[in-house]
């Protein structure tokens, strides 16, 4: 972790049909952290990521990536959407999906060539999915699909990675494989931001955490702020009881 701020969010408010789902969020994410965003369902975790990436338009506030607007810094950012957000029956192969990660650097109209294909194959190798490169994506298990999504983000060779619930519906082996890759990314100085559901694994996987529930509750190093007090503030009373079950 360095002193640089990778992502800065100021006074961000986002609403669906005039009903705010994120309210006045201020957030500074330092470069080189592996950060979890936690909060109950409907807390606006995915919305926060989507607003940072310009997929949703906020009604107030601003976002900067290394001091500049997202539009200017697009090439520094990779995004892994929720697995359920796409139609896995789409007629395409694993390799082709990973290639989509290279489209951003290509820009409009230009087509992927050997160089992009090579990068995609390397990314597939990294997530252990090379033997499945020509498999139609609906023929992959949930964990394999998630690895394909991860490979697609890796191929972007970004500085900041946003991931929306990468551990949802994956088997234990895949979960370990994914977290190892995320830790490698952090080691390489990248910033990784993950919407996360499983509170139990937060201290083990992450070094930074943001508690979110429509408003920002707390953000900082896991060892300092991952405590019952913040959990209770985020999830409501008596959180301690349910986490220990």
């Amino acid at each position: 972790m360095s002193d640089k701020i990778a992502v800065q969010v100021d006074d961000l408010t986002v609403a669906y049909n005039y009903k705010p789902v994120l309210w006045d969020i201020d957030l500074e994410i330092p470069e080189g952290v592996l950060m979890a965003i936690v909060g109950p369902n409907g807390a606006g975790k995915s919305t926060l990521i989507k607003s940072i990436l310009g997929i949703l338009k906020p009604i107030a506030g601003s976002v900067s990536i290394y001091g500049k607007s997202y539009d200017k810094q697009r090439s520094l950012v990779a995004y892994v959407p929720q697995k359920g957000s796409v139609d896995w029956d789409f007629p395409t192969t694993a390799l082709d999906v990973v290639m989509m990660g290279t489209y951003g650097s290509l820009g409009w109209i230009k087509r992927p060539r050997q160089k992009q294909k090579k990068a995609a194959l390397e990314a597939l190798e990294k997530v252990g999915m090379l033997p499945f490169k020509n498999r139609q994506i609906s023929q992959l298990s949930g964990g394999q699909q998630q690895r394909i999504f991860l490979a697609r983000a890796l191929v972007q060779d970004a500085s900041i990675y946003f991931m929306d619930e990468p551990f949802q519906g994956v088997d234990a082996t895949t979960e370990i494989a994914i977290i190892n890759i995320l830790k490698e990314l952090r080691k390489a100085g990248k910033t990784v931001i993950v919407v996360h559901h499983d509170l139990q694994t937060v201290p083990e996987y992450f070094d930074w955490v943001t508690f979110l529930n429509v408003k920002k509750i707390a953000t900082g190093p896991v060892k300092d702020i991952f405590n019952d007090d913040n959990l209770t503030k985020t999830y409501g009373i008596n959180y301690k009881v349910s986490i220990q079950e």
Partner: protein
Amino acid sequence: MSNAQIEIQLIASLVAIACAIPGTFLVLRKMAMISDAISHSILPGIVVGFFITHDLGSPILILLATLAGVVTVVLVEYIQKTGLVKEDTAIGLVFPALFSIGVILIKKNADDIHLDVDAVLLGELAYAPFDRLLVSGVDLGPKSLWIVGAILMITIILLFAFFKELKLSTFDKGLAASLGFSPVIIHYGLMTVSSITTVGAFDAVGAILVVALMIAPAATAYLLTTDLKKMLFLSIVFGVFSAISGYWFAHWLDASIAGSITTMLGVLFLLVYLFAPNKGVIAVLYREKQQRTEVSLLTFLLHLKNHDEERERHVNHLNEHINWQKVRSKTVLELALKNNMIIIDNNIVSLTSKGDEFTTQAIDYIITNEDAQIEDMKDDFFLFRG
């Protein structure tokens, strides 16, 4: 074949190709119904355009009608965004309203105008060769051929230029947006092309049957391939095949060409729906039957693995014991024997080492659900193909 016959088939084929391309993306985007909406609501655009130009092939008319198509999409999305009704309801609200405006306009001015509702809805391909494009007295062929040809050229150029963008935004809108390929621009681009194609095709096949030409070839191709490029190619092939075979079917029956083309599309879909190698009804039924047998096989092998006592492993005992009919027991025994998984010695069944290993692996897979270890088994057994 006469010249007119060739011209009609050529027009029908070009229309089919021009429809199949946007149609493929509409099907993948689950927006088949929007093509229905567009095809109806271009009517007021056509009527107003016809008032102004008195020429069904005029570019102004095509432009106005295309605009009406895009307005439909905008209105549908606007109503949907209010969150008060769902998309299908929004479609059902918008296009009849626009269509009825067109119908009223035609009826009000029926005396001055030779544009009847039948022609708009059903088209009349048979008359297409009569309306020629004449440039300083030289006959350059039927006007519709030029119109449809021009629209097809535009569609193909756009497809080649923006194939990557179309694929990405159709598969993953979120990623497209985050990479800077505005899904909104691509969406409206596709909607505009769909509208232009509909306008260009309506003259030939009519507003209703355009929908069939957009959706049916793509839906048929979808059952046959898992590759987007192949799907596009197959859609085009099916479209052209239906256009030409439909023409001859109509010729033979002395019936509507548009109706016959659509019938062919329907027949083609039905055949593929039944006989497609993976997704077809027969293939699915066969697979389910195989899976049932394989589950039985596994149950049987597991039973053998768990029991050393001879009385539990007697051939005749199995019927009663695992509670199977004779036929099923026989099928399972034969399958196991064929795969060298068991040996039968004096009516006593025992596992071979291969059978033993297979059972262990299969049970492991069922418990852990880990795919990688059974890759080699997937080719032989349906059960493990997800």
